[in-house]
């Protein structure tokens, strides 16, 4: 929706309104998934990104379709922020033939290789190595591409994190590690299973910084610096974005908790407040700066909601996945 250009810092310029719209698209799309999940429209579960939109949107604002990203089990935000098509994503989540992966992957596996989206991934930590391999390819090709690995604070305990930082550092690869530190890994408070601050692990290998992950500008600027360094041959960087997951680990997690809890409602409410929520924060700022009036923001929201409903309609009107594909794709050309 946004028209890319180049800003003073040399990266593709995305306006604040673009950032706003992109975050909102992710938010509204996922809010709609909550409904779909509840009403039984979806074959499988969904892990929602609500509350963390500023990370994907801020980071992807400094990338082009030629750059690679690897995503997580919580991948809708990265997919949309990197330019993935909402219709194709919804159709995928609905298990339809028109899905971006033809219904073979589902929510946890949305990928659009043509846009450098190497896929959401159900294996926690899998993206480290894939991004590092892609970054190596990018470096070999010599066209200034970068590969960004999005991963969670829980994933940062997987050894492949260190292995991939090591390879990226030793070989000066254009890898950007973006940690989405939402403080939890499923139902475990990550600090209870982690030794020391994550950023220190990265510092042993590369420039590493921690930013407010709910401030889309802060994320964009930090990742922007990392991406520029990588494009210029300066090797890998690490950006840790502090954020919060508003929804459960997956929708309907309460069925899996057996009455237990791992965080309080107050915590959640605090992160949902206007001074924390990434979208509300940007709105407040845009209004304060006078960049645009409330009506414009409302109009964007209305347009986004329409876009989302259109995607639902597209998905629901689409034919089911073709079961034969499992054979023909899997055993396609040798």
């Amino acid at each position: 929706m946004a028209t890319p250009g180049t800003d003073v810092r040399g990266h593709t310029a995305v306006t604040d309104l673009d950032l706003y719209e992109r975050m909102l698209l992710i938010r509204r799309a996922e809010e709609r998934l909550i409904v779909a999940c509840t009403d039984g429209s979806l074959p499988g579960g969904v892990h929602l990104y609500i509350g963390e939109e500023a990370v994907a949107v801020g980071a992807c604002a400094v990338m082009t379709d030629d750059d690679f990203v690897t995503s997580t089990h919580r991948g809708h935000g990265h997919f949309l922020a990197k330019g993935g098509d909402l219709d194709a994503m919804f159709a995928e989540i609905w298990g339809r033939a028109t899905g971006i992966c033809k219904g073979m992957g589902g929510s946890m596996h949305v990928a659009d290789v043509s846009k450098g989206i190497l896929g959401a991934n159900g294996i926690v930590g899998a993206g480290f190595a894939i991004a590092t391999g892609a970054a190596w390819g990018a470096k070999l090709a010599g066209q200034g591409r970068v590969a960004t690995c999005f991963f969670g604070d829980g994933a940062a305990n997987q050894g492949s994190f260190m292995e991939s930082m090591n390879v990226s550092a030793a070989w000066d690869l254009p890898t950007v590690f973006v940690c989405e530190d939402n403080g939890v890994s499923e139902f475990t408070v990550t600090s209870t299973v982690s030794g020391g601050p994550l950023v220190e692990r990265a510092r042993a290998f590369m420039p590493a910084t921690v930013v407010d992950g709910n401030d889309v500008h802060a994320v964009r600027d930090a990742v922007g610096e990392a991406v520029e360094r990588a494009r210029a041959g300066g090797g890998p960087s690490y950006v840790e974005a502090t954020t919060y997951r508003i929804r459960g680990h997956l929708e309907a997690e309460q069925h899996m908790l057996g009455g237990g809890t791992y965080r309080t409602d107050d915590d959640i409410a605090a992160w949902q407040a206007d001074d924390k929520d990434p979208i509300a924060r940007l709105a407040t700022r845009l209004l304060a700066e006078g960049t645009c009036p409330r009506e414009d923001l409302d109009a964007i929201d209305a347009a986004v909601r329409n876009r989302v409903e259109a995607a639902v309609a597209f998905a629901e009107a689409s034919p089911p996945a073709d079961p034969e594909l499992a054979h023909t794709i899997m055993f396609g050309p040798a």
Partner: protein
Amino acid sequence: MARKRLITAVNDALVAEMERDEKLIVFGEDVELAIMGDTRGLVGRFGRDRVRNSPICEQTLTGMAVGLASAGYRVVLHLMFNNFIYTGMDAIGNQMAKLRLMTGGQMELPITVIAGYGGGNSNAAQHSDTAYPALMNLGGLRVAVPTNSADAKGLFTTAVRGRTPTFFLEAAGRGGEMGEVPDGEHLVPFGQADVLREGDDVTVVAIGTMVKPTLRAAKALADDGISAEVIDPRTLVPLDEDTILGSVAKTGRLVVVDEARDRCSAASQIAAVVADRGFASLRAPVRRVTVPDVALPYARNAEAALIPSPERIADAVRHVTQKQFA
């Protein structure tokens, strides 16, 4: 006796074993709040020294199990899904399965690894593998695939009290049915198959999740006058070859139903054993009803088309009981 979900039966067994042996330790990702339910309530009862959420690092978790067992503990490691067995495969294949032999018998490893397997829930390919063939081939590991609550309790207790690394595989999402469970101590020995239904025309060995559709198929076949004997091996290592061979000696026909992919599956192994040791009894081809050698798709219809259904099982039985093989 009481009716319980399979997962509750395992939970009961765990509580009893933890009370029995204070050196029994449970760990893994989210075992405290217990995503799967089988470890629920344990941390409150036994404390965090003995029940502990781990970081996400399967490669090290499986190796830690080896170290903890070497230090004199009995270990239950929860790996959540079969696909994460691949993530932790190094210490499984290179240490757990081998150290007893390699140390000349010095190292006994009383480790039970729990992990859910199988598809049918649109979990997509990275959460729906049935990985026991790889485990079976490693040597040195025992593999249990309980199909009902009572066996779950009995096999789990036997697993935990053993001295050999054992994989206790739970049907992910589809094995949570209710069933009668004996009260008090209940052990089911490894290597003893259960004949779930007697029959004369064909032996159907159904593994784990495949028991239910097989019993359904057997019922439908009975209406057609085909009498199927259904055997649940309960453990794949050790495998009760004798019960299977005895049944085939009676029926002359074998169908094996397995949710693993076909190549080098448990079904292939059982078929191969019977094609050797039971050849003299065989009157018809040995059929395998398995998942084709593909990754399971997400879309419900595409996934369902690949997992053995009562219809596919019945078709296989009909094939081997044709007149031409009489």
